[in-house]
């Protein structure tokens, strides 16, 4: 098959995947009260055909939130911006710090610090966020000083510092761990001992000989990191009450009128677009690093 055709195939298959995944809550339901688990095909097909017929009339881009009906297009812009802001700036800050700390960890012998970072790094994102919120509440109750706002109470008064810090924490932790491991592997290569024998300085060897061989690993593994970040985004938005895409999806997916198929499909598509944009931006950022360190 032609390469172009193959690449183009991605779009329809991804769409089909999203359409299918969003059907799952309708498809898998209990049969009446106490009945056996059965696949509800007719109801699922109805939702699917409603979605397609609604595309033309615009019905598929309306959803119910509480008692009112809204247009998808009116609401998604703000949510998209919020999500993009946290996921992009979070990963930018996190990756930069993580890279530098990772390099430091690969070289230094402060074992106790490494061990602590490693242990805390193993904790799930939501635990870290809850612990952060706990510590802010704790400090506030002891000293009366509210260091950060724990969560957004309304859209006019959003909490920014703590969510951004949390958004940076996950990529930083990922980078620290992996840079340290890859760096150690790279530093055991023969060309490093050769560079050392030539009398080059430590900093020079690390940044111009070792790091250029560590970065490609991250380019290849970027999808993995981004996958983690997207999952993290949901937790972040939910726990901090941020009006992002994840929150948008969850808060109204199951409304009073039941499951909103069209909303979930549209939301998931937004996620894919968000993913693609963030991926591009981070690739650009890594490309910048490569330009700097391999003159």
């Amino acid at each position, binding site marked *: 098959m032609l390469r172009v055709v193959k690449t183009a195939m991605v779009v329809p298959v991804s769409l089909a995947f999203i359409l299918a995944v969003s059907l799952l809550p309708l498809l898998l339901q209990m049969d009446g009260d106490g009945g056996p688990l059965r696949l509800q095909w007719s109801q699922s097909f109805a939702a699917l055909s409603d979605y397609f017929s609604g595309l033309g009339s615009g019905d598929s881009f309306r959803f119910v939130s509480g008692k009112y009906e809204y247009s998808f297009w009116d609401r998604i812009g703000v949510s998209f911006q919020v999500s993009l802001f946290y996921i992009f700036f979070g990963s930018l800050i996190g990756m930069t710090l993580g890279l530098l700390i990772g390099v430091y960890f690969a070289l230094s012998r402060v074992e106790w610090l490494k061990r602590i970072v490693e242990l805390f790094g193993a904790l799930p994102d*939501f635990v870290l966020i809850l612990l952060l919120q706990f510590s802010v509440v704790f400090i506030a109750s002891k000293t009366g000083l509210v260091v950060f706002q*724990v969560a957004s109470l309304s859209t006019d008064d959003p909490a920014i510092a703590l969510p951004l810090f949390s958004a940076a924490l996950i990529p930083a932790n990922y980078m620290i761990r992996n840079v340290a491991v890859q760096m150690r592997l790279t530093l055991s290569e023969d060309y490093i001992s050769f560079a050392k024998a030539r009398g080059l300085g430590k900093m020079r060897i690390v940044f111009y000989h070792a790091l250029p061989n560590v970065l490609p690993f991250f380019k290849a593994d970027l999808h993995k990191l981004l996958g983690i970040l997207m999952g993290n985004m949901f937790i972040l938005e939910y*726990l901090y009450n941020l009006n992002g895409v994840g929150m948008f999806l969850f808060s109204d997916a199951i409304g009073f009128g039941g499951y909103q198929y069209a909303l979930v499909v549209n939301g998931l598509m937004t996620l894919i677009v968000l993913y693609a944009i963030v991926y591009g931006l981070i690739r650009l950022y890594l490309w910048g690093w490569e330009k700097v360190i391999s003159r």
Partner: protein
Amino acid sequence: MNKNLTIGLAIIVLMTLGALLGGYLSPHDLQEQLKIEYIVDDQGKGTVIAPPAPPGQRYPFGTDKYGYDLLTKLLDGAKYTLFLSFGIGFARVFIGGLIGMLLGYFRERQPEKQPADSWKALNGIPIFLITWLLLIGISINSALSPPKLSLLLAFVLTAVGIPSVLSTIKDKTIVLRERPYVIASESLGADHWTIVRSHLFPFLKESFLILIVQEIVLVLTLFGQLAIFNLFVGGTTMYMDPPEYHSRTNEWAGLIGQARGFLYTKQWILFIPLAAYVLLIMGFQLISNGLQQRYNRIYAKPPHL
């Protein structure tokens, strides 16, 4: 002595004992509820005792909002948290590892075609979201029993976790397969089974062990993430007016998820299950670190700087 491994194992063994003997160790009955009481002491001074009780002598970890003992609840839910996560982690590595090893071994000798990069955009949909969509229709106020629902969740979580294990093991096997000793053995006429058993598996053994522990941590993370969105292991009971979600099994992530509102006051209701959960994850992480250390000491080259 490997400190990480010892401490990690000690934590997990203690918790497993707690999970096994939970019913005998718990200080209160699961159904026993602290009711509102008005006690008058000798001086005629009256005090009101009302749930939730903070951690104290009678309730070492305090009670929840409705007056049920938290320690009892934790001990009751431990079996779900521990044994399910362990089972799922093991199943993921067993199935994924087996298929991965065979795929890596029987791979054709030509360079493999990489799938197009753009496929990976589907990564944008997190795994826990897919699991959530799959199970939310049947988990809330379900007619299925908690063990059945747990089993269903275990099945789903095993299935979504296999691909990553599979590809890790496959990559490792491909590297091992090109080693001189494998080729030597092959040219001496060893059959496939012998090569897999005596040349590939012994080198993958450590990776399998570490992978199991890491997968357990990942499964526990997923339990927690699902619980944040009110999908609890073993099913969710939802009450209307005001909407409240309760775990049917007292599984630890569920206890955290249902207590999420107690951030500002009566924090022990959230903090105690969270602490237990963190300790469990740390225990597994320590085991994983300890194993990694052992493994590095045997195989890794020292860095030059």
